[in-house]
């Protein structure tokens, strides 16, 4: 940045000047929810394939996860809709397919997510929510239909994994292809958002497990807040098989996420001046405090430590890592969307 440069623009278009601010809270929330759903799909898909179809057991990963995914996805799409400024024309998305536009890809992928998630959820729905199955016996029939066909189960699982990967990467590519904003100008954003999504999904499932376990000293206030959910899932002891797996998986995802984030920043720092300047926005600029504290310390490092302790049985499984990871995931999307819009190619004043 040359201090002896003055750049004066007469343009003062709303949302564009003084720095771009076209996207507010809706987009980061949407990206977060998209990533979360992608993570839920992948985990659900893998779990569905991993457990033998005949082995009927209630599964947070395979049922509650996809069900939550359906809700989150709808929420995300609603939030995305809120962001559109020409809302009445939204149907235009589905009259065309633009091969170069990640957003067009995304809108079609989103359509695939619903059936995949629904199929996955159906497979084990009766065990997961017996009350529901009691009222709608047809669910049991559908579940039987799926579980009796191994190939179908595998197909559903693979579909979930593939669509999940597509969705997760798409949330990052969406920003990554916008080369006009140097901070986003990285292919690593796709994998980064994918793994961030996976980590938030694993953390969410882990958190649900903790919440729904009737383990010693269930936190009273949490019980109060989420009693409806716990009643649905029927409180039972902490699933000692799944919880450590989820925590362990979450730790791997977080570690990979941390690595990708480092690579992402190193990539910028070793690139052109504008990219360096963009990375500086996070490292020491106006977003540094939020980045280091909320994304790195509280969103990744602290839950990593806590989950490691949990895995070592040094401490009990708690809701804390889940909340921290989810919060960190949201913070990551916010900070990248906001700082990205602030980064620009004119690396002069203004």
């Amino acid at each position, binding site marked *: 940045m040359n201090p002896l440069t003055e750049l004066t623009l007469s343009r003062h278009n709303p949302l564009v000047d003084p720095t771009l601010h076209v996207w507010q809270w809706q987009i980061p929330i949407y990206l977060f929810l998209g990533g979360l759903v992608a993570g839920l799909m992948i985990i659900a898909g893998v779990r569905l394939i991993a457990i033998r179809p005949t082995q009927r057991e209630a599964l947070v990963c395979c049922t509650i996860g996809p069900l939550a995914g359906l809700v989150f996805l709808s929420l995300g799409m609603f939030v995305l809709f809120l962001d559109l400024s020409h809302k009445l024309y939204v149907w235009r998305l589905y009259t065309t397919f633009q091969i170069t536009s990640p957003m067009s890809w995304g809108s079609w992928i989103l359509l695939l997510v619903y059936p995949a998630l629904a199929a996955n959820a159906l497979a084990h729905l009766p065990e997961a929510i017996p009350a529901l199955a009691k009222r709608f016996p047809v669910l049991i029939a559908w579940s039987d239909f799926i579980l009796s066909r191994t190939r179908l189960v595998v197909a559903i699982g693979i579909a979930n994994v593939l669509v999940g990967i597509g969705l997760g990467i798409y949330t990052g590519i969406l920003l990554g292809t916008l080369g006009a904003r140097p901070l986003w100008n990285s292919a690593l954003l796709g994998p980064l958002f994918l793994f961030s999504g996976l980590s938030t999904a694993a953390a969410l499932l882990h958190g649900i497990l903790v919440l729904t376990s009737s383990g010693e000293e269930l936190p009273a206030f949490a019980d109060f807040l989420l009693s409806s959910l716990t009643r649905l899932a029927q409180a039972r002891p902490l699933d000692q098989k799944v919880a450590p797996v989820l925590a362990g998986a979450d730790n791997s995802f977080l570690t990979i996420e941390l690595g990708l984030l480092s690579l992402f920043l190193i990539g910028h720092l070793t690139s052109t001046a504008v990219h360096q300047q963009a990375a500086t926005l996070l490292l*020491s*600029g*106006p*977003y*540094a*405090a939020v980045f*280091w*504290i909320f994304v790195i*310390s509280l969103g990744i490092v602290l839950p990593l430590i806590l989950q490691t302790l949990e895995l070592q049985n040094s401490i009990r499984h708690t809701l804390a890592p889940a909340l921290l990871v989810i919060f960190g995931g949201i913070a990551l999307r916010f900070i990248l969307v906001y700082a990205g819009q602030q980064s620009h190619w004119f690396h002069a004043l203004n």
Partner: protein
Amino acid sequence: MNAPFYKFGLFGDEASFIIAFLIGIGFGFFLERAGFGSARKLAAQFYLRDLSVLKVMFTAIITAMTGLYVFSRLGMLDLSLVYLVPTFLVPQIVGGLLLGVGFVIGGYCPGTSCVSAATGRIDGMVYILGMVAGLLGFGEVYPRIVNFAHSTSMGQITLPQLFDLPYGLLVFAAVLMALGAFAASEWAEKRFGGKQPDPEGSIIGGSRRLTPVRALALSLAVIGLCAAFAGDPYRGHHTTIATRDLEMRVGQGADLIEPAQLADWIIQDRNDFRLVDLRPQKDYIAWHIPRAENFPLASLTPDFAAHNEKIILCSDDSLEAAKAWFLLEAQGFKSVYVLSGGMQGWKDFVLFPVRPQGATDAAFERQAQVAKFFGGSPQASNTEASSVATPAPPRVAPAPLPTAPPASTSTAPPRKKKEGC
């Protein structure tokens, strides 16, 4: 080492937040380790069952106090830049009493309540809610008691200043007092709490070995004792000066500005420098170089100008200018120059330049006109330099008390939030 780092601009606001977070982690960690997440443990202090509060607090205070003293006495830290909460005696006494009552009733203070809430203490969370409610209420009544809250103002004042005693002596006194209090506490705990002193963890009880705790106490006492005789930390500035670097600059004359060049800068209205006149005020008022500001040596505080500004020093006395040059360089000013030849040089080369032998009028014209502009007169080569002694009729009218920089609105201090908790 230039501490406090933040005040010397080593890092910006954003980084300071990250540091705040890290320091906070340390703060919270040790509070919790000390058991301050538990209201019962805290409250036990007031029933003389468990005096950890006193012990922890005073150990922390004397540790930081002696550390601070050592750093500043060694010149590594500028104690005057460490923020001191101003004293409003009566409000602080009243506030202290209220706080004490609140402490017994609620069982926490604000800092410890955070730790207790973070470790799941529901009473700690409720306490925080109470505090928020209290603050809300206070915010509404504050306008009515604002006069009281601002009463008995004593400014930023320390005990050494109040009692006019050496700083070090008070450090020592505080250490001694703390150690005495520790001994008393241990006795009280035994007496009222029925605790058997832990041989490793107490100062007076147990064995006669030099346990690590005793070593700590002893070192603090020794530092305190030294401090009592080692002088004032505020005036203990030591700065390392890169002599080779300075030597090189002086050798190349890179620290000097020729009078003719300064004259050109003034004429061209260049404003990328500050011209500092070091002479006494009366000399300055009598006449000075246009644009000069009067800052006698003693008033060259680190904040009299921005550190990256170009500063040109002028004085009658070259030694004075050299002193000021060293002082400013040591204070971290980046580009300080001395007017070559001082005021005399200005007179010789700008106000009363002598036409070199054999030079034509035309070649000398520029210098002559510059001299006239500044109120001097060019000298023919054969005239004696005696006239030089007459002070120049100042072209710039003597300014009335121009010590202060131009009154600009920006000098008003930005509205500052009260620090402290």
